[in-house]
């Protein structure tokens, strides 16, 4: 049956092997979902104009919260009245996104009743993103969310943002920390910071269970928690032989399962970035030189496992380009034990925030504040000792700000005495 707005361009996106959001939304519209109908029309117009048709969102939200809702209005309400208001609701996902069909159906029910029925599962930060509703729906929606689903809103604005983690111990043999519990605990502990803007700008936590960093923490979080170990890689020599003997499929089949002869030298030993492995029928790892890149482990998962003295490396400052160029997180705590209730780590976080709230400019991410005021100032503020593990290389410019406290007489000269020794 014909929809309100013809969508010849969008229809092109129904072709092809990949799932089509157009087919999906048209199905909704066909059922009589007015918002979906107008949304399709608006999208079609954007495709024609090659320009978006959404305006800046005003401040919309629920009582007592400073975040969680993204206001959004279209710039052609005359043509598309049903999406004149089209706010986003960010719902805080359960860490690493396991759901029962029951709770998912409840969410659908809620959203069919109070919104467009369109979602993002999930947003880039991790939230359940409910796309498109009107201001009057926000309070009832929030009421039902909290009362019936035991769920809460996620973050937006200059708040702590919804933290997220990789699935960690729930289904991964490599996880060195309980990523999900860490994220859950932090989210609960810092609810106030999540819902009420108190920072210079947004602040994101992400936790990966090991250096594979499956939640991209090092690229996408102001505070990156990445599992690691500081003892020895566990080796099952028999299994190593089995790989060499082609009895086990290398790389857990990630490179295909076709039978091929596995060459431990060229595929593992020679690719070890530190060259700290030897194989002569027996595998030897010089763990003191290992940087825990996990290449050997991922290629021979049945033979090698991370060590047992596990914890996390803490890095800070990752962000997208705005304002001063993208940054990845940098190591500030090479190793820290991460056991509930994470007291030591939370103490660190409090110090970081105190300093950033004190020193940070408006819309300045933590990484940018550190750039502006120096890693040295940051380390002093959070009471961490400098460590070569924090840098790839010591400075190579000679512009050292020596501490006057360590200079005899500090910054002062005895000018008169100087001119006694040196005539002008």
């Amino acid at each position: 049956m014909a929809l309100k707005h013809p969508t010849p361009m969008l229809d092109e996106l129904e072709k092809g092997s990949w799932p089509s959001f157009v087919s999906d939304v048209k199905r909704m519209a066909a059922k009589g979902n007015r918002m979906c109908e107008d949304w399709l029309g608006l999208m079609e117009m954007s495709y024609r104009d090659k320009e978006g048709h959404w305006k800046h969102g005003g401040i919309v939200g629920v009582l007592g919260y400073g975040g969680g809702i993204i206001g959004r209005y279209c710039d052609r309400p005359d043509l598309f009245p049903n999406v004149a208001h089209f706010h986003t609701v960010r719902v805080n996902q359960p860490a690493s996104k396991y759901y029962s069909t029951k709770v998912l159906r409840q969410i659908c029910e809620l959203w069919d009743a109070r919104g467009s029925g369109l979602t993002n599962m999930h947003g880039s930060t991790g939230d359940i993103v409910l796309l498109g509703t009107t201001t009057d729906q926000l309070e009832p929606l929030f009421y039902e969310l909290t009362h019936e689903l035991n769920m809460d809103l996620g973050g937006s604005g200059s708040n702590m943002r919804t933290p997220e983690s990789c699935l960690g111990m729930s289904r991964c043999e490599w996880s060195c920390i309980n990523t999900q519990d860490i994220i859950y605990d932090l989210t609960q502990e810092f609810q106030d910071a999540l819902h009420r803007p108190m920072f210079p700008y947004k602040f994101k936590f992400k936790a990966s269970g090991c250096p594979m960093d499956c939640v991209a923490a090092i690229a996408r979080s102001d505070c990156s928690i990445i599992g690691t170990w500081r003892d020895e890689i566990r080796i099952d020599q028999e299994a190593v032989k089995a790989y060499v003997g082609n009895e086990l499929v290398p790389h857990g089949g990630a490179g295909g399962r076709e039978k091929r002869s596995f060459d431990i030298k060229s595929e593992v030993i020679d690719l070890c970035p530190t060259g700290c492995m030897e194989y002569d029928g027996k595998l030897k790892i010089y763990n003191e030189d290992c940087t825990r890149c996990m290449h050997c482990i991922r290629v021979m998962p049945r033979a090698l496992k991370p060590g047992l003295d596990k914890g996390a490396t803490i890095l800070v400052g990752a962000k997208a380009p705005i304002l001063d160029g993208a940054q990845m997180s940098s190591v500030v705590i090479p190793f820290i034990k991460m056991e509930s209730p994470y007291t030591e780590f939370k103490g660190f976080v409090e110090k970081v925030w105190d300093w950033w709230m004190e020193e940070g400019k408006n819309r300045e991410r933590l990484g940018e504040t550190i750039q502006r005021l120096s890693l040295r100032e940051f380390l002093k503020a959070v009471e961490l000792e400098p460590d070569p593990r924090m840098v790839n290389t010591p400075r190579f410019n000679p512009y050292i700000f020596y501490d006057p406290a360590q200079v005899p007489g500090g910054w002062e000269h005895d000018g008169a005495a100087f001119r006694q020794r040196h005539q002008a």
Partner: protein
Amino acid sequence: MAFDPNNLMKDRITDIGPPKYDTYFPPIIKENFGKWNYHEILEPGVLVHVADSGAEVYSVRIGTARLISTDYIKEVCDLADKYCGGYLRWTTRNNIEFLVSEKAKLQPLITDLRSRGNWFPIGGTGASITNIVHTQGWAHCHTPAIDASGVVKAVMDDLYEYFGSHKLPAQVRIALACCLNMCGAVHCSDIAILGVHRKPPFVENERVQNVCEIPLVVAACPTAAIKPKKVGEMKSIEINNNRCMFCGNCYTMCPALPLADGEGDGIALWVGGKVSNVKSTPMFSKLAVPYIPNEPPRWPTTVKSVRKIVEAYAEGGRRYERIGEWINRIGWERFFEKTGLAFQHEHIDDYRLAMTTWRTTTQFKF
């Protein structure tokens, strides 16, 4: 008791946070939490994880559009009820994982998924091209230079063969962001598709003083291209176009400075980034193609350019070598030759850290 519009504070619940992470764990995950021993990928998109106890969980990963409706979610729930005891999860790249604990149900699930047209493609594991992390685009944001979902659909249609196979040297992570804010965090992706503006904002003097905080706008410009300016009686701002690199940050702060333009906007492609610490350390994505026009509905030039990169890599990359590692080995001079992409002025950095990107050695390939 139900919601009372006239008394919002009535038994109001706030700050409860999300459900605990294990609330919706399937039993097999709960029982073997932290006790997994190893995993294997049985076929593209199908993983088995084996616990110390010997217990096995099969994960079937399917690609999704991410922009999905409640109807779609309900259909997924039906499948999970039928094969997975009513549980499922999403991955960090917007794929769905059906977790099967009864081996007997694995093949039926796969068959069922395959029987439903193009809704549930299976793959995204191992040395494949998994789902494209992306953003809102024209679907919901106010600063995009391009659409997100449509570009992703067109590119994934074209790269479909790589989603359901393991024939690449290593995994390839593609991300898309519709403006320089980079919500997709594309800055560390093997291949990044980025929406770019190419015209400085135009200043709507009549609106500026009403809708913008001028000091914040001035401060928002990374290159200090914006100065306050009085236009007649109106407080407004002035933009030094020569200094503008079209980041749109001022527009984020001030709706009276639109910079979107159908003809000027388009796509820049980036390559060689990575996040994992495997072998090499994390890397930023670097510029591959400075500009491709916006070509809705299917962005053919973008699709072709991405394929060029993927195919050159598929041919030249060595096992375990990510795109960025491949390029570091062969050198950028070879990358541009092998992909047939042109090296232009735009490739040469001229922002803050530019000098660190210049070639300060006689080592290069002719």
